[in-house]
């Protein structure tokens, strides 16, 4: 029974994603970024894939808007790579939510990702994906030599 509802909720979350991205046009515009309809659809689909792939469902929306706001003024992002980076960030974000068992608030995790993206990862999404949780949160991870 509840699984049927989960499927219906997934469907609802896709419908809401594009509306959500439209609502953050102003903030993006201030940073020289314009999301075209096709970009929004790509991000909405990436969000849905990321949610389904990591066994999560969106509640009342807000993830895409907050992620866009958090990364909009990154010095490493611009019109040409913003949508693509958003699409890559979403699975990473949900993966970390699962690994952290929802113990870290969304905004805190997004900020940690942003800091790590600008810092350790030097604006490279592949480098960000390769970081450990401790590294993303800016902690020194002890290696065997340290011990």
């Amino acid at each position, binding site marked *: *029974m*509840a*699984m*049927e*509802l*989960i499927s*219906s*909720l997934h*469907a*609802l979350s896709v419908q809401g994603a594009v509306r959500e991205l439209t609502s953050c046009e102003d903030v993006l515009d201030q940073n020289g970024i314009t999301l075209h309809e096709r970009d929004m659809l790509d991000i909405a689909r990436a969000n849905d894939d990321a*949610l389904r792939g990591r*066994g*999560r*469902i*969106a*509640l*009342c*929306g*807000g*993830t895409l808007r*907050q992620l866009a706001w958090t990364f909009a003024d990154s010095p490493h992002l611009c019109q040409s790579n913003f949508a693509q980076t958003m699409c890559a960030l979403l699975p990473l974000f*949900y993966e970390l*939510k*699962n690994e952290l068992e*929802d*113990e*870290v*608030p*969304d*905004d805190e995790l997004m900020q940690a990702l942003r800091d790590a993206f600008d810092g350790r990862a030097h604006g490279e999404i592949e480098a960000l994906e390769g970081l450990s949780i401790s590294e993303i949160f800016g902690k020194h991870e002890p290696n065997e030599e340290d011990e």
Partner: protein
Amino acid sequence: MNELSLLEQCAERPMISRELLAEKLLPLLAQKARERAIHDTRSLREEDAEALLHGLVYALETHMAAENLPQEALEGDIFRLYDRALETLRALLERARRLYPAVQGALPAYASRALRDTVGSIGGFFARYDVFLYPHRMPCDIDYQLSFPVPENAQGVSYILLYLSRLRDECAFLNCFDDARVRALLCSYYIDPYEEVSNLFEPVAACALARSLPGLGGASLLWLTDGDKRRLFDMQIDQGMLRDAAETLGSALALPATVRALLLRTALSLLPRIRAARDAYALGAALGCGSARPTL
């Protein structure tokens, strides 16, 4: 239709369309996620969402069944409806809580281990039941089988209330008979009644009903002699006779209405077994009397 019947009906068929629920439940689900202390999150793991949704749906459906509300009730303020649903669940919980000591006190001295353990475990249910987040869950172990099980889909406090109500009725019936005679009957029917997880009411009710058929001399003896079995076998027992026997027995024991209803249901359920019995001894077994002669 009384409240318990409505709970049974609710357990047997979902009352709210899934499409409507999905649309209306998202805001409630978000609130539940916050109440579950999932830190400021805009998404949930499916298993968490599923458990919370299950609880929401159960609460709403139970309330709508208890209040006989149409689906349109979901079109209004869902938070208000849900608050009322919680009130309904709390009322059911209170009812079950009040019923519990009555059931404990009604357990016969010969109650089996499974029956005692189950009733003991239900005591823990009241301490662990989470009406806010997971009201559909049943944090206790139900090992003892009732003569007529609670509907499979019944959940949470609805299940416990139905279980306790039925168990109270079974115990009320058993307590009408002399303990020694019931023990003797059970020992002829089960190898070790104390270790038996099967129902204790059923063989006693079957035998008492058989003895309430015309010419058998009444239920208090609670045993069928070989002569009784032969007489019953020749009698061509039909549905009407079983119905009359249930009525006779209910009046003789001055049973309350709910126990009489249980007795009638039991009587009617005996018919296929009676018809399947090929001889007087098989019929005796179908009517609660095993092959061993009881020792008082």
